[in-house]
């Protein structure tokens, strides 16, 4: 019988029951909503949009691969690896799915990648390269760990307390690449008189490891970071990075399939995880923030997949932007749960830079079509890709993280 589970040792076989729940309806291949108040139809799968073939489109293609691999109808190959590693894990397919496989879709992608690592297949060279050094550097940028806090001016560094209510979990991208976002965040937190600190033994949150199926390596990272709140007597992590937010709030804390408690235990049980936009919105709602200036520009907002679809934080950034004096807010056609990925996630920016930037270009064009002057988002990783696409295409748009927009014009009441 060709439909019997034969490859029982695969990581994917552990969720075989759920993978089988896919009815192959194909909803996941296209974004769609229709009704008295809705009329939305658009391609949302970045991978399918680029590579077209069915296996690349949404989760249905990956289910077919998974089942064929488990049933021994096909074997792992470079072609299979290409399908697995060009998915950004944006979650648009999961958003569209209505059957019982839905919660397991992203987990399925990661399990398949975990299996691919154990086969003799072509893992994207750049992913392999950072994977070789992350255990030593604790970041995927091949930078030295000792330089993680180099972006902090010494005046600020010296003012940081040893223990605080919040740990600002900076993340690797803001620490080593988009340092202005990290700086803006620190300035904002100081202006808002938030009791926070930054720790020099922060390691990569493990998002790149989990998203690319490197479960064994991720373990140390999850355990290490989970010990930080107790060590610094903090009750919460605060992040500006959507990837870190997703990982700390879901992967560390939650049971499968939303998180990885089945592999690493239930971590951070007493630690709150907040995205900066949530903190700012909360303070605004309490009347603790006052605007001291204007931002007189037309702005559109890109939902980071890890903050939006993965964590369902759609409103906090919008509510903040809508309160900024002078700011005219416009939506792109594809927004919120129907947003289109920037193209960087799931290891794609590292593994396939050209395709990643091509995707970001599509998003930038969509932002341009709104007539906005500024494209904003709430993630340093989206920043990298969208900013690079703006430069590459000589787009008239300017990219600013939402924190960079508000930091100069607020104070604590």
């Amino acid at each position, binding site marked *: *019988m060709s*439909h*019997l*589970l034969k490859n029982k040792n695969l990581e994917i076989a552990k969720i*075989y*029951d759920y993978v*089988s*729940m*896919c*009815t*192959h*309806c*194909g*909803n*996941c*291949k*296209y*974004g*769609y*909503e*229709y*009704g*008295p108040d809705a*009329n*939305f*139809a658009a391609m949302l799968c970045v991978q399918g949009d680029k590579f*077209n*073939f*069915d296996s690349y489109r949404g989760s249905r293609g990956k289910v077919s691969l998974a089942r064929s691999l488990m049933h021994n*109808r096909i074997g792992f190959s470079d072609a299979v690896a290409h399908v697995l590693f060009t998915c950004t894990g944006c979650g648009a397919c999961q958003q*569209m*799915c*209505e*059957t*019982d*496989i839905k919660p397991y879709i992203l987990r399925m992608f990661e399990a398949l990648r975990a299996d691919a690592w154990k086969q003799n297949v072509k893992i994207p060279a750049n992913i392999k390269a950072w994977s070789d050094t992350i255990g030593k550097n604790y970041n995927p940028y091949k930078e030295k760990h000792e330089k993680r806090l180099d972006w902090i001016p010494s005046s600020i560094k010296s003012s940081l307390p040893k223990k605080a209510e919040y740990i600002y979990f900076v993340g690797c991208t803001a620490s080593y690449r988009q340092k202005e976002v990290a700086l803006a965040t620190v300035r904002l937190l100081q202006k808002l008189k938030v009791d926070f600190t930054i720790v020099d033994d922060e390691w990569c949150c493990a998002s790149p490891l989990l998203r690319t199926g490197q479960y064994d390596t991720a373990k140390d990272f999850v355990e290490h970071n989970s010990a930080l709140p107790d060590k610094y007597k903090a009750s919460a992590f605060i992040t500006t990075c959507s990837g870190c937010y997703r990982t700390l709030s879901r992967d560390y804390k939650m049971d499968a399939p939303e998180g990885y408690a089945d592999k690493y235990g239930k971590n951070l049980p007493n630690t709150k995880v907040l995205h900066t936009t949530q903190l700012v919105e909360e303070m605004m709602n309490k009347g603790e923030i006052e605007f001291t200036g204007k931002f007189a520009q037309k702005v559109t907002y890109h939902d980071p997949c890890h903050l939006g679809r993965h964590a369902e934080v759609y409103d906090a950034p919008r509510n903040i932007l809508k309160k900024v004096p002078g700011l005219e807010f416009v939506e792109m056609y594809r927004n919120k749960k129907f947003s289109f990925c920037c193209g960087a996630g799931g290891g794609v920016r590292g593994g396939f830079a050209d395709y990643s930037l091509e995707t970001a270009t599509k998003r930038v064009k969509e932002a341009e079509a709104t007539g906005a002057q500024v494209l904003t988002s709430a993630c340093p990783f989206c920043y990298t890709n969208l900013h690079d696409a703006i430069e590459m295409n000589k787009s008239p748009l300017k990219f600013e993280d939402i924190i960079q927009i508000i930091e100069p014009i607020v104070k604590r009441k």
Partner: protein
Amino acid sequence: MPDYVVMPKTVTEIQRVLRLANHRKIPVIPYCNGTNIGGLCVPEEGGIIMDLKRMDQIIKIDPETCYAVIEPGVSHAAFSAALKASNPQWKGNEFSKGFDFGWGVHPASASVLAMAINHGIGHLNGRIGINSQLLTGMEVVLPTGEVCKLGSCAYSDSWHSYLPLPRMDGLFTGWLGTTGIVTKLGMWIFPIRPFKDVCTIAAASADDITKYMVHWRHYSLCDEVTAVSWWLAQVPIVFPYREKPKDAPEFYSYTVLTGWTQEEIDYKKKMWKQVVAQERAKGTKLIDFEYPPEAKKGRTELPSRIVGSTKNYSKSCGGGIAWPGTFAPCKSWPILYEKWKEIYIRHGLSPATRFTDYQGAHYGMLRCMTPFNKRDPASVQAARDAMVECVRAGIPEGMLPYKPPVEYQNELNAVADAGYLYLTAKIKDMLDPNNILNPGKLGVR
């Protein structure tokens, strides 16, 4: 398994692939989204899957003559969004908002063209017939590589109708992609009626519900009238079989009313109530019941990703779903229901049956949703056996399976008129001398 997959973007690319395949005698299987339930895109003999998704242009929506022209890759999602955004009008003078087409309950990513050329079923079928009756023109590439236009589009750029020409579109409609690759399709579209309502009634037996349905649709006042057996009305469908509670109705029915004014809806409702009262007076056992609002939405807001997802079925079993879907004279519904019920229960399956009327009093659909556990070979086999047995039992009663998988096709061919089979083979040979297009699916070549 296919040996190759190609994704042409243009008609010329299709011609090239077909010429090469014809020369080398390689099978070519047209494919859009592969959501047909009959395995119609599963190659019987390997070959080339021709995936037409990249041909995704809505070429024209004519809001005055009320037709649209599309390529094969246009999904229900994209087409419905475009139709909803275009308004019926005459020289800029708009009459109403948005156009409708016969939307099925399938996934919104499925191809409109693939559905329509294979006698697809949609929500307007009670009013205007099934979707292949709404076609107005076609461009097709023959297996030998020639491109032909059929209908008014063969003479001008107007794609409004096949009539009064000979109906050559019949050579490519209902043939399951075995005679040509359709590259453009013209279809009538219909102004969306702004007022909608759903009326519901249940019945004690298949006989009772059929009496009511035949009476009601006699007046051609509804867009759709459908009945589902108790097992199909459960969410999720009962799997494996379990007995219905004694006091529960055997069938539940809904009918969709649409109109231009509330008065029109009120009038249709009055007529509907009159039918129900008259049937009750004759002794037909009809039982009052109300649809929950969510279920009403599922009937009036199509195409729907929720309805098309088969959500209800995956939960109950192991993600497998199939059905013997057939067109049948309504007279046969109660007779076949009793036969099918016996067959399904014998195989441990629920008789999750549906009746739907097409186009007034002329014909209808009879099908039985069949969940099965994909992980259990015995469950797969039981479903397969039950479905084939149902088809065999139905053919003498005038029932014909639509989009039939090879198993059903073999049942049909075994009892078909010899002249019909001769002509089928002759047409296939004429159009496809090397039998390269989706070979094996018709069971004659």
